[in-house]
């Protein structure tokens, strides 16, 4: 026999109260890694200004990072598979759109989007979001790009910049 304590009754009531609350929102998160080089430099500034603004990131031959990319997607969980999106499909899409063109490449030289655009991780994050938001099987909520373990950047497509 189940004996309900007062605490249980309270929590049952709390549950009833919540049953009319907003539905649950589930996101799937996936992490990927790529290594790429970049140089922070703009023709719009003088050599001195570039050195002042970008410091050693403006060194002429560039340098590289091991980037960590995190993507969160949302959507209905298919009862037949228990999944928001098939992981193999998501992995193939990210491989094609981001990892293959970026991994072991120079962002400045090899990625068209960074011709004339400084490949800061802010801009990299936006470029990756723009590529990944086209994933047809789920909604891309946001991407997070970690440049080093001490700095990371997130973008959810909201250009007004208010945090969600």
């Amino acid at each position, binding site marked *: 026999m189940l004996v309900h304590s007062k605490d249980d009754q309270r929590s049952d009531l709390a549950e009833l109260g919540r049953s009319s609350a907003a539905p649950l929102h589930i996101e799937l998160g996936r992490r990927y890694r790529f290594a790429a080089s970049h140089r922070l430099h703009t023709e719009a500034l003088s050599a001195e200004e570039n050195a002042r603004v970008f410091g050693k990131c403006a060194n002429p031959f560039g340098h590289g990072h091991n980037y960590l990319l995190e993507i969160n997607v949302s959507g209905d969980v298919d009862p*037949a598979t228990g999944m928001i999106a098939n992981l193999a499909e998501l992995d193939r899409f990210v491989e094609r759109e981001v990892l293959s063109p970026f991994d072991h490449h120079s962002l400045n030289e090899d990625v068209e989007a960074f011709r004339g655009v400084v490949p800061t991780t802010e801009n990299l994050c936006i470029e990756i979001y723009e590529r990944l938001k086209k994933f047809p099987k789920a909604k891309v909520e946001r991407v997070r790009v970690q440049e080093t373990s001490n700095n990371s950047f997130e973008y959810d497509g909201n250009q007004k910049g208010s945090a969600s």
Partner: protein
Amino acid sequence: MVLITRKIEFAASHLYHNPALSAEENRRVFGKCNNPHGHGHNYTLEVTVAGEPDPVTGMVLDLKELKEILEREIMQRMDHRFLNYEVEELKGKIPTCENIVRVIWELLEPKIRQGRLHRVRLYESADLFADCYRNGAAC
């Protein structure tokens, strides 16, 4: 509002198989996760509670109590268990991260009486996780 997060780890086995699909379809959809005897993961669970610190104790909630809730509701139910066969709440469901995180949310939410449950994040590995929120609370 302050967010407070407690992390626990548990080890469990599972497999993905939908009896409504043929053997070939199961293999195609689930790949090696469909291997018949299952496989296991070290799961990491992060539970985040939101609230205002109590002016007397300085706490959003008593972490000791949260620890006990997690032990009772999650560890005893899932740690060193075969999720498909031994966890009642997952019967008839494919035990993906998405489904497990929802079950964990539903187990924990009614038990947390100080603050309110803000986010449950379940890692199946360092590179794969699922988040659960009440809609509108995502951040």
